[in-house]
């Protein structure tokens, strides 16, 4: 764990703390809403610890207290199906054996996004585990606190916390999209706007560079199709939201991978 802290560096730890704090407050609101809806405290805590997926928890808690347990399970699973492709994309950071068994459980949008924003494999590993572990603590502590406090807790949207998650995700995706464009323009080198971290050697343990934004140190995939896939995937998901059940619009965004066929891969693109 100490090695993970050291590898992560102060800037990354601060970034993770920011999103963990926001998620902790959302956890408080989950606990409060779920108990106010009639879910017993033990169920709130058990769901948070065992399922550990915010969106699915809100959905399942709402449906189960409304007397629809089958829809709660199916809806929650549909919402969480995205973790299968997530696991295929970042499974390398999990390690093997017991580490993989534990690491799988802390796979959430944030830990995947923070890992994707790093280029160096050791920083990917550190970012994933640190984000997942810290979120596991703040989310569950938040759910417990919210569950105990119940209706006393105000609406977290008053503090704009609902805007924090999508903005944070965008910030974590941005280096991937920028990097793709830069590589498309200058595939040979890291380009003129290369951050100091771009030259970081894998064995560099001091990690003197503290990038302003996570992942400014370059990021896989260096795929010129990434901005297209992101933009079209976002469009598909938003367009499908009024019609499709929760969770499905995000999965439908995978259809955007079709545009990758139209964007040729150059040699540099596959060496990420």
């Amino acid at each position, binding site marked *: 764990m100490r090695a993970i802290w050291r590898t992560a560096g102060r800037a990354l730890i601060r*970034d993770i*703390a*920011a*999103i963990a704090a926001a998620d902790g407050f959302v956890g408080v609101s989950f606990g409060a809403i779920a108990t106010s809806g009639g879910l017993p405290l033990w*169920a709130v805590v058990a769901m948070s610890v065992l*399922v*550990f997926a915010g969106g699915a928890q809100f959905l399942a808690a709402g449906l*189960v207290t409304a007397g629809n*347990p089958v829809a709660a*399970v199916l809806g929650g*699973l549909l919402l*969480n199906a995205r*973790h*299968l492709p*997530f*696991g*295929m*994309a970042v*499974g390398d950071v999990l390690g093997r054996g017991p580490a*993989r*068994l534990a*690491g*799988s*459980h802390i796979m959430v*949008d944030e830990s*995947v996004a923070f890992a994707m924003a790093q280029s160096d494999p050791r920083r990917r590993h550190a970012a994933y585990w640190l984000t997942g572990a810290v979120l596991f603590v703040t989310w569950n502590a938040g759910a417990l606190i919210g569950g105990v406090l119940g209706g006393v807790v105000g609406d977290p*949207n*008053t*503090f*704009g916390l*609902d*805007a*924090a998650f*999508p*903005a*944070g*995700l*965008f*910030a*974590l*995706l*941005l280096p*991937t999209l920028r990097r793709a464009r830069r590589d498309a323009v200058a595939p040979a080198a890291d380009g003129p706007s290369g951050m100091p971290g771009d030259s970081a050697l894998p064995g560099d343990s001091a990690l003197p560079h503290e990038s*302003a934004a996570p992942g400014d140190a370059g990021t896989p*995939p260096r795929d010129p199709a*990434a901005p297209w*896939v*992101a*933009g079209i*995937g*976002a469009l598909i*998901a*938003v367009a499908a*939201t009024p019609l499709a059940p929760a969770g499905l619009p995000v999965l*439908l*965004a*995978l259809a*955007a*991978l079709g545009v*990758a066929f139209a964007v040729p891969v150059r040699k540099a693109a596959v060496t990420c």
Partner: protein
Amino acid sequence: MLIAVIVVLAVGTYGFRLGGALLRERVTLPAPVARFLPLAAVALLAALAATAALTEGHGSAGVARPAGVLAGAVAAWRRLPFILVVVVAAGTAAILRALGVP
């Protein structure tokens, strides 16, 4: 019944998580297909960000939240530190709501 819901949801979710990681290792993908794995995560994360920013349930998320996210996105675009991106997004949405914007 409640226990069953929680356990089935937890086991299924964990199955997705571990299953993806195991599939990645067990199945050797040819290079053109392997390219799609990180791109799939990009598509999913972008879709999550967009739907979380713009939609609530099956409808619109109103004005304050998308405006907050937009402010955060501009901050990210201008390479402000991540913590400021989060604070700007939340702060903008909070101020707009305090002013009565839905």
